[in-house]
C-alpha cells in the first residue's frame, strides 16, 4: 500500500485526466465535481468474499423470484409471507408491469447491494438497489489507474482483477437481448452519473443513446443510426421508471421513449433493470427479504439484514416508540441518504413530532438498530484518519448470477457521520478482493 500512498497525487491527477466526476444540483444549478478518491483500499479476504459472494447470489436470486411472483402469481402474498400493503402501497410497485415476463425471467440484471461490516466482523445488508444502482465505473477506472501508478503494489498483493466489469455487463445484456444492438439509455449530459453512463457504454461496447435517438415502431425499439435504423435488443436504462415512457408513466416526461413499454410487453426488447423493480428494493420490503429466501429458495439466508422493525406491526411499533433514541428511522419513500433520522440526534420536540407521524403513517417508516459499523482508514495529508464506510456490491444476472469481485466502497467525510452518499460529500475507495 505504500506505493499507493506515495503516488496519491499521481492517481488523483489521472482521475482528473479521465474526467472521473459526478454531477450535483445545488440551487437549481448543475455542478460537476471530481469524486474524491482515497487510495487506501478496502480489503476483503478470499474466505470472507466466498461467503459474501454466496450470500449475495442467494439474495439477488430470491429478489428476482419475488419480482416474478409479484408481477405474476403473487403466491407470496397469498401464502401470507408478505402483507399486500407492502406491495401495493409501495411507490415502486407499477401496475403497468403486471403480467410482463421479461427474457429469462430476470428482472434485476444489475443489482447494487449495500452492506456494512459491523465492528463484530459481521456483514449486514443495509439496502438493495434494483432500479438503477450506480457506482461500478468508479472502482473500475480507479483500479486501472492505480495499477499503472503503483505496479509493485499489485505485484506484491494478490488482488482479484476487477477490470472485467464491462464484459460482465455485456454478458448480462447479451443474455437477455431479443435480437439487435445493446444500448445504454441515458437522460443526458447533465445527469449526476453521466460519466458512468458513457464509461460503461465504452467498456461494454454498447451504444450510448438519449431519448431523441431512440424510437418505437411496430412495437420494436430502434436506434436512429445514420446508416439506417438499428433494432435494439436490450436497453440498459439509466433513467427512473416514471420517466421511461410518457405514454405509460409520467406524461410530462421529455426524456422518455413513447411506447417503450409496449415494445417491452411484447417481448421485443429487454429492459435492464426491469421497470417496476422498485417494489422489491423498497425499504419496507427489505424486512421481508430473509423470508423470501426461505420461501423461494428453501434456504437459510447467508447474509443478515440489519435488525429492523416495522411500525406496521403492533409489537414492533410499541418497541420503536419506546426506543426511538436508540434507533435509526428511515422514511421508505426517500433515497440517497435523505429521510434518515437518528433518534439520538433529534430534539424532544422533533422526536414527539416523528412519533406522531409514525402513528399516523406506520407503513411509511422502518426502524433499525444503529449498527456500529467499522471505520476504515483514510489518507489525510501525511496521516490517516478513520471514517465510516459501506460497500456497494454489484451482482449481475443473465443466464447465471455473478458477483463482481470488487465494489464501490463509499466513505463519509465527516467524523461520526454514518451517511456515505456521494451526493452528501462522501468519497470512494477501491475494493480489493484477495485471490488467496
Amino acid at each position, binding site marked *: 500500500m505504500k506505493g499507493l500512498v506515495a503516488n496519491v497525487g499521481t492517481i488523483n491527477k489521472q482521475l482528473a485526466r479521465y474526467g472521473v466526476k459526478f454531477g450535483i444540483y445545488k440551487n437549481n444549478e448543475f455542478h460537476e465535481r471530481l469524486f474524491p478518491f482515497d487510495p487506501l483500499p478496502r480489503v476483503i479476504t478470499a474466505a470472507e468474499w466466498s461467503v459474501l459472494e454466496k450470500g449475495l447470489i442467494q439474495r439477488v436470486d430470491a429478489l428476482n423470484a419475488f419480482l416474478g411472483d409479484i408481477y405474476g402469481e403473487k403466491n407470496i402474498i397469498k401464502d401470507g409471507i408478505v402483507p399486500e400493503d407492502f406491495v401495493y402501497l409501495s411507490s415502486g410497485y407499477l401496475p403497468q408491469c403486471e403480467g410482463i415476463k421479461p427474457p429469462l425471467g430476470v428482472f434485476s440484471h444489475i443489482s447494487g447491494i449495500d452492506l456494512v461490516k459491523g465492528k463484530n466482523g459481521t456483514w449486514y445488508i443495509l439496502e438493495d438497489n434494483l432500479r438503477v444502482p450506480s457506482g461500478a465505473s468508479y472502482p473500475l477506472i480507479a483500479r486501472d489507474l492505480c495499477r499503472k501508478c503503483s505496479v509493485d503494489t499489485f505485484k506484491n498483493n494478490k488482488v482479484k482483477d476487477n477490470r472485467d466489469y464491462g464484459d460482465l455487463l455485456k454478458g448480462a445484456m447479451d443474455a437477455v437481448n431479443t435480437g439487435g444492438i445493446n444500448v445504454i439509455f441515458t437522460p443526458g449530459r447533465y445527469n449526476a452519473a453521466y460519466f458512468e453512463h458513457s464509461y460503461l457504454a465504452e467498456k461494454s461496447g454498447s*451504444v450510448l443513446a438519449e431519448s431523441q*435517438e431512440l424510437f418505437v415502431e411496430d412495437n420494436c425499439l430502434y436506434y436512429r443510426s445514420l*446508416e439506417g435504423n438499428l433494432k435494439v435488443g436490450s436497453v440498459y436504462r439509466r433513467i427512473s421508471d416514471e420517466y421511461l415512457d410518457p405514454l405509460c408513466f409520467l406524461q410530462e416526461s421529455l426524456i422518455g421513449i413513447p411506447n417503450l413499454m409496449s415494445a417491452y410487453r411484447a417481448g421485443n426488447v429487454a429492459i435492464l433493470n426491469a421497470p417496476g423493480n422498485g417494489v422489491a428494493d423498497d425499504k419496507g420490503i427489505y424486512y421481508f427479504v430473509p423470508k423470501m429466501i426461505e420461501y423461494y429458495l428453501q434456504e437459510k439466508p447467508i447474509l443478515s439484514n440489519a435488525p429492523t422493525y416495522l411500525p406496521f406491526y403492533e409489537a414492533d411499533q410499541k418497541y420503536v416508540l419506546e426506543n426511538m433514541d436508540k434507533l435509526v428511522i428511515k422514511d421508505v419513500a426517500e433515497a440517497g441518504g435523505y429521510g434518515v433520522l437518528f433518534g439520538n440526534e433529534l430534539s424532544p420536540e422533533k422526536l414527539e413530532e416523528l412519533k406522531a407521524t409514525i402513528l399516523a403513517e406506520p407503513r411509511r417508516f422502518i426502524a433499525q438498530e444503529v449498527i456500529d459499523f467499522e471505520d476504515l482508514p483514510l489518507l489525510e495529508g501525511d496521516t490517516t484518519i478513520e471514517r465510516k464506510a459501506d460497500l456497494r456490491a454489484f451482482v449481475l444476472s443473465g443466464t447465471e448470477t455473478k458477483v463482481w469481485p470488487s465494489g464501490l466502497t463509499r466513505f463519509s467525510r465527516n467524523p461520526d457521520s454514518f451517511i456515505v452518499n456521494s451526493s452528501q460529500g462522501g468519497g470512494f475507495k477501491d475494493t480489493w478482493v484477495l485471490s488467496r
Partner: protein
Amino acid sequence: MGAITLNKNNRLFWLGRYAERVYQSVGIVAKMQDMMLDEEDIDIDAFCSKIGIAAIFDSPEDFCKRYPFDRSLQGSIICAADDMLGNGMVLRELLGSLTLSYLQMTVSALELASKSKSCAVELQWVLDDIMAFRGSYAEFVEKTSTRNTIRCGASVERLGTMIRFDATELEIRKECKKLLHRLERSGLDHDAEQLAYITEFISSEEENLNRFELISKVESLFQV
C-alpha cells in the same frame, strides 16, 4: 460499436471545430505577443473584429491576459475548450476514454497556464494536448467517416482563421482542397450550391478572392 445518429455526427463536427478553434486561438495570442514585443502599433479593436469577438479589451496586454482564460468572456479560448470537452464527453464510446482524456488535459492545461507567470510557454501544453488528441483519434477511431467528420469541422475552422488572417490564396486553395477531400469521406450532409462555389474557387486561377464571401460559403457548406 460505431453506429451514430445525426445528433452525434453534429457533435463530432463541432468537436472538430472547437478543438481547432482552441489551437488557432493560442496561435493568435502568440501573434499578439509577438506584435507587442516588436512594438508594433496595434489596433486592438480591429484585431478583435478580425477574430470575431467583442472589442472590450483595454490594451493588447489586457487581451493576452483575458482572451485565453476568462470564462465570463464569450468567445474566449477557455470557453471554446469547454465546448470542445462538452462535445467530446457525449462521444466517449466513439472516441474512447484515452482520446477523450486529451481534451480534458487541454482544459486543465489552460487552467494551469492562467496561473502561470509565463503563460506563453505554458500555452504550448495546450497545443501539445490538441496535437495528441488529433493523433489519438486518427489512430483509435475506427470508422473513416467518423474521423473525417471531426476533420471537416477542423478544416472549416482553420479556413476561417486563414481567410481572416491574410493567408495567401494558394494556401487557402490548398486548405479548401483538403476540406473537400475530407467531406467526401465524411458522409456529412452538405449544400450543393456552396460546394460548387468552393470547387470553382479551387480550380480558378484568378487572384481576386472575395474573402468574406468565401468565409460565408465555407461556414454554410455543412448542414449541421
